[in-house]
């Protein structure tokens, strides 16, 4: 990605990835918000979170070390992880450019 994107744009992309991972018909039934947590609110299991992170890496990878960031998380951080955490992380990486 060459252009800096807004929080809202990132959110839309992440939401789309969630739909791709868990199935769009399930995603439509969920109230997915920036503050939604992957484990508690979206009930995504570990492999689904890994699959989701692959997609984020593919999309934003050139400019951010998303996998590295996620790999560094311990179990409590991973359980608490929300969509917003990822948006903030991507924004921070972009502002460093």
């Amino acid at each position, binding site marked *: 990605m060459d252009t800096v994107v807004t929080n809202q744009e990132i959110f839309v992309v992440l939401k789309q990835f969630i739909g791709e991972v*868990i*199935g769009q018909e*399930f995603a439509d039934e969920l109230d997915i918000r920036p503050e939604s947590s992957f*484990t508690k609110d979206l*009930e*995504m*299991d*570990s*492999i*689904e*979170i*890994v699959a989701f992170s692959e997609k984020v890496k593919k999309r934003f990878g050139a400019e951010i070390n998303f996998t590295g960031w*996620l*790999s*560094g*998380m*311990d*179990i*409590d*951080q*991973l*359980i608490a992880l929300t969509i917003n955490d990822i948006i903030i992380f991507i924004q921070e990486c972009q502002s460093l450019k």
Partner: protein
Amino acid sequence: MAIRFSFVVPPLAGHVNPTLGLGTELLRRGHAVAWISLDPSLPLPKGGELLLIAGEEHRDKISRKNVYGIESIKFLYDEVLIPLNRYMYDGVLEWIERWGAEVIINDHQLFAGAIAAYQLGVPYATSVTAPAAVKMMEDLPGVHEWEVQRMVGLQRELGLEGERCVACSDRMALLFTSREFFGEMELSSAYQFVGPVLGRPGGVSFDWERFERMRGRPRILVSIGTTFDHGQQLDFLQKVISAFGGEELSVVLVSDADLLPGWPENFLVQRRVPQLEILPHLDAVVCHGGHNTVCESLTNGLPLVVLPIAYDQSHVASRVVAADSGLRLNFKRSKPEELRGAVWEVLREGRYRDGALRIGRSFKEAGGVARAADLLESIK
């Protein structure tokens, strides 16, 4: 020369079963074999010795909580494994010395066995009965690192200084799977793929007559294992009934028959089934992704529909999909129609059966108990 082998096992059927088959082979070769365990009713092979550690209240902790996803890993370590290992450590240490074990085989989750062996200078191998847990190191390194810190913390508590985790032997770790099913990952030479060791306690009664009458349409097994709580089981059973009640399928369901007042006529419900004996007669299996049930199904060339609930099961399920031997559904989200659709898909599409047969062959080629016993004999 005869060697005195002692297994150290947790009170979890899935972790004990492979050691029973392996122990039987070691006994057949003339070795002395013992099991250090909390379970007084361990169904040991003839000649096997039970080295019992008293502690009823530590036995079935795992089934008392509704756990799911990554949180289940935290629960597993903080509330089950660390307290269990802390509790068993003294007894393990004492039995190793008293019985005079010359080689310890610790379950990868019974790290107290590894710690005690290490401290006593007794050679030990590690029995990795849930190999997908190893794969998790790669998928979620942060979680793996967290697990290691928990184990190292316990080591320190038990008087073993240093940062190195000894839970898994650096001399030999037996992975009860094949390389093909496990998947790509760089591993140290200590890791040996011996294939699954199938072995379950015998003597389970079964309504074979009724099972025979269920012929004529596809017969499937539905089982979600032994470690999940009541609420989870009920939710799942309702889904299974909506999915398969009245379908052109015969369903062998592993469940307490009195959990529900009635069952569809095409269901045969028993709390325990002689799984290894009935699998050769079945066409597909629906399960939660426990390593043993998955391996037993694949050994019989049966395609799977896997609905992982917790622990390493999500990773087992993804291996089934990667090996083209079945489909994965989300345990919580999936609807009855999807479950039904997935079962018909694995029954009708030959590629899933082909995939299952291919993995089944890779299991046989891995050598099984004979190879595992050879490896263990070489360790002393």
